[in-house]
């Protein structure tokens, strides 16, 4: 049948190699299209909107870039964020994403494809995931074989761990960074295999693109030196590695320093020291090899010992002095929390408060990777079986990334591609071993020649075992596809700016409170009104309501965020002084008690208390004061006085005591906490209610002026 089809298409006359290429190209294109289309469910279900929080900022900056040009973007000082400190946007972002989107936009418009910038932003991540599919294929092909590459490419196209950050509308750095990272790895493997200057320079350029798009490049610039070091230790270090690493490191570092946000970090901070050290080590290693080749063994040994002793002492001293003088910047908190998961929790509440910085649970490994979790060790085994330079690299990549993914949920994203590559290798190798063992009835000649060749490795019911294994693998692959589609559609396609829930009759209910409220702000408040909210909503507020905000998702200033936390956690009169100090006109809170939306401000309130209390001005705010006498976090009658008096509590539950939320429950019944609120009847002194959205998810208050006639 296949034959007739081929004949009809006029392809039967093609040679075997050409047919193979055709099949490969077809599989790859299907995988690319699949990876693009599977990410569109959120657009189909909702509309073409930007998702979540950070993407709104990226979208806003991209608009600026498209409208004002690169230099205005580069020098952009944003006076709408972090009032009154402002933020130098050009110097505090990775511009790769915006530049990419703007380039795509300009090219398309140049060829008269009129697409607006929002749609470019929405569809950029799916587009790049298609590119990732190709890169994964190339990378796996380089490491193992074409077959493994095709399996890996098909897997990466639908693996939920990657989809979670690259659905349409999720316009974030990670969307393109995974492509950049894998492309850099691919060029690196090419470079280290061939030792060609051209590939090394390509690798440096790819690295530059990676640096310009994501802070996660630090993983890359540590992994490549680790690879080189491993090659040295295992005695596989060659001229090829030397050439490729030296070129890649020096050119790549110089290029990366052109990104203003990175600046001098590659030569100053501890995260980059490993790369520098390995670069130095390369020179020494090469020099030593040269000397050994030109000297007698005894002379060489004497020289070697002296030099090593002196060098180690000098290096130790230099590092000590530099550290003491503060020349090597202290390791940043995010980095510490990678090495010690409990570090952030104990020391930096602002890092620990972000849910994607939490350690990963076992369940989410299975949820995001499913089959790959089991096939990963198989692939690892096959890689160890035939060690090569490239194999060592992917082994290192998989081992390090599995550790990092365990530390931080967010880094699941880095793990997903290598899981696909390893599983691709595993599945492909397994299948190609057992497929051969299935004896086909129609080809006795082939079977005969094979059996004569492989007599030694023959065993009983060989064909049956092979059939079972192939069937099981096929079954697993099928469930993998179903699982991935289900996860994508259920868990990762929600824009989180528009919420959906199922009503009693199973109908989908859409909560569009966020956009309703941001538009209210946009059309009903003065142009330069200052809005205070918890930092999560900062980016959305500036992008959608176009109002000045106090803090946003770029959590660069602890003190400022802490000040807002203090305002939220303090009683009204104390909050008032803080709000006046910050010139706040409106306060916005997210409240889920009415609708059952659980990631609201009352649930985040503990973090506000912790962050608020983490600076000297907020010393009076103590977490323990906000717990009930039994040490629980509650909002009902048992809640502490500090809780009841706090501005956050009052803003969330103002007039809530009059409302019946659920049948058979008393008034003022909070549907998220499942408690009847403890303080139902109170008035606000320093605020007045300005707006409450349809489902009460967003509540906006106006800060009152001082009483006109004194304190009456």
């Amino acid at each position: 049948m296949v034959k007739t089809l081929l004949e009809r298409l006029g392809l039967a006359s093609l040679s075997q190699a050409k047919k193979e290429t055709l099949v490969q190209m077809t599989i790859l294109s299907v995988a690319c299209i699949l990876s693009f289309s599977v990410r569109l469910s959120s657009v189909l279900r909702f509309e073409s909107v930007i998702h979540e929080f950070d993407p709104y900022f990226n979208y806003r900056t991209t608009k600026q870039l498209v409208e004002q040009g690169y230099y205005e973007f580069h020098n952009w000082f944003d006076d709408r964020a972090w009032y009154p400190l402002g933020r130098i946007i050009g110097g505090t972002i990775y511009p790769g994403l915006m530049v990419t989107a703007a380039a795509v936009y300009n090219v398309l418009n140049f060829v008269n494809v009129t697409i607006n910038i929002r749609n470019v932003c929405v569809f950029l991540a799916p587009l790049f995931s298609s590119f990732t599919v190709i890169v994964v294929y190339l990378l796996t092909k380089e490491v193992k074989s074409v077959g493994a590459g095709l399996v890996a490419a098909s897997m990466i196209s639908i693996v939920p761990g990657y989809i979670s950050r690259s659905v349409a509308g999720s316009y974030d750095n990670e969307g393109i960074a995974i492509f950049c990272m894998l492309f850099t790895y691919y060029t690196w493997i090419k470079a280290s295999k061939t030792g060609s200057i051209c590939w090394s320079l390509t690798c440096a350029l790819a690295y530059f693109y990676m640096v310009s798009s994501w802070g996660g490049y630090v993983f890359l610039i540590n992994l490549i030196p680790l690879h080189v070091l491993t090659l040295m230790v295992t005695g596989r270090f060659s001229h090829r590695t030397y050439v490729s690493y030296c070129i890649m490191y020096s050119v790549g570092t110089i290029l990366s320093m052109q990104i203003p946000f990175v600046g001098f970090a590659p030569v100053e901070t501890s995260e980059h020291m490993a790369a520098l050290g390995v670069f130095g080590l390369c020179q020494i290693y090469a020099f030593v090899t040269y000397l050994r080749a030109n000297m007698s063994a005894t002379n060489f040994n004497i020289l070697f010992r002296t030099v090593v002793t002196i060098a180690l002492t000098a290096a130790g001293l230099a590092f000590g002095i530099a550290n003491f003088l503060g020349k090597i910047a202290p390791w940043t908190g995010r980095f510490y929390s990678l090495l010690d998961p409990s570090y952030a929790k104990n020391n930096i509440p602002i890092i620990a408060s972000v849910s994607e910085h939490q350690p990963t649970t076992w369940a989410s490994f299975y949820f995001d990777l499913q089959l790959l979790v089991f096939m990963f060790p198989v692939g690892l085994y096959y890689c160890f079986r035939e060690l090569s330079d490239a194999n060592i690299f992917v082994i290192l990549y998989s081992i390090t990334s599995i550790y990092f993914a365990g530390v931080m949920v967010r880094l699941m994203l880095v793990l997903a591609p290598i899981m696909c590559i390893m599983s691709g290798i595993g599945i492909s190798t397994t299948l190609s071993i057992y497929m051969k063992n299935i004896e086909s009835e129609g080809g006795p000649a082939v079977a005969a020649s094979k059996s004569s060749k492989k007599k030694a490795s023959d065993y009983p019911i060989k064909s049956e075992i092979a059939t079972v294994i192939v069937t099981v693998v096929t079954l697993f692959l099928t469930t993998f596809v179903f699982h991935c589609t289900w996860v994508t559609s259920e868990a990762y396609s929600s824009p989180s700016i528009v919420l959906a829930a199922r009503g009693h009759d199973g109908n989908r209910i859409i909560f569009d409170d966020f956009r309703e409220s941001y538009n209210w702000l946009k059309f009903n408040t003065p142009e330069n009104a200052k809005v205070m909210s918890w930092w999560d909503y900062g980016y959305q507020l500036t992008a959608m309501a176009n109002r000045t905000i106090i803090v946003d998702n770029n959590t660069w200033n602890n003190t400022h965020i802490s000040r807002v936390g203090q305002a939220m956690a303090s009683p009204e009169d104390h909050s008032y002084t803080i709000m006046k100090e910050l010139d706040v006109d409106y306060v916005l809170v997210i409240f889920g008690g009415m609708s059952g939306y659980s990631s609201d401000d009352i649930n985040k309130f503990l973090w506000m208390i912790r962050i608020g209390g983490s600076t000297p001005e907020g010393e009076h705010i103590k977490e323990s004061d906000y717990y009930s006498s039994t040490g629980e976090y509650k909002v009902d009658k048992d809640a502490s006085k500090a809780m009841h008096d706090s501005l956050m509590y009052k803003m969330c539950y103002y007039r809530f005591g009059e409302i019946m939320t659920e049948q058979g429950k008393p008034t003022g019944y909070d549907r998220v906490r499942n408690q009847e609120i403890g303080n139902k009847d109170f008035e606000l002194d320093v605020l007045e209610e300005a707006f409450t959205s349809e489902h009460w998810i967003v509540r906006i208050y106006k800060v009152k002026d001082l009483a006109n006639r004194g304190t009456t």
Partner: protein
Amino acid sequence: EESNERITSSGINAEYGAITPADFLDFVDEGGNLIMTANDKVGEPIREIAAEVGLEVDEPGTAVIDHMNYDVADTGNHVLIVAGDFTSTEVIVGASPSPVLFHGVGMAADSENPLVIDILRASDTAYSHSPDQDILEYPLAIGSSLLLVAGMQARNNARVVVFGSHDMLSDKLYNAQAQTVASTTSQEAGNRGFVSAVADWALKRNGDLRFSAIKHNKVGEEPSDAAYRITDDVEYSIIIEEMRSGKWAPFQAKDVQVEFVRIDPFVRLFLVPDSAGNFKVSFKVPDVYGVFQFKVDYDRTGYTHLFSTTQVSVRPFRHTEYERFIPSAYPYYASAFSMMGGVIVFSFLFLYHKDTKPAAKTE
């Protein structure tokens, strides 16, 4: 534009129709000025309005009694008193007012209200009580905390003045001679001058300030909307005028300050007025970027609270505005160029140098 209202203690009672104390308070909140007088028959509405502006008027039937400083014309209850403890604010009471005759109720200021101005205080020996009854309870106020005439300037700059004595404004006391029982000489009572000065102040014929024409620009440039750059030299000017006896005149105070504020003031300078009341100062923007405000916050007793903020952004250097060649970097420039030269020379040598193979090796 300005609306004023005067009411007297007999002025409002239950029959006054639809106007309630709340209407008067709304009137003040909308910017109207209010003068009220009271006496020992003070009614509840007056007391209610007074309470809302931070003054507690003593109960009907009480009077301010001073056994040491009553006027010689007093009829025996020691309630016609000579008072001379004026506020030192010249713009309210005029220059060197002479003691006035007072006969009426006393008031106490609400300690919680920072806006109350003590215009005329009773002497140390005065107290407020019913003249006919024994003193069994502590009086509302005694001594200098007992106010005879008090004012309040609301946050919207509306002014309210309460005279504790209705008679004080009468022709009889305007033309009377004042002589305390202890002194031997008499002088003309200062009521006429004092009352007209206070009324002028209350009706904003005096001590009213207004500003206009706020300008800020880079030195030597026209004002524009563009953000300032750190370390720019800027000029700030504001025209302030003062209402003096009903006419606007240039304000001439030497103590008006402008602040350049980002949460805290980074710069605080005195503004120098010229003869036209144009206050000006120039300074260097601090080396700190952010959203700043030019803030004039001139709050002096008796004057309108002058408050003006102008928001400006201060941006950091653009990428082209940094110094191009830094002297301390010359060693690095030198090393970079010598390196380039070295590479060229080395490559030249490497490419065009041929090793002469030593004969020993070939053997």
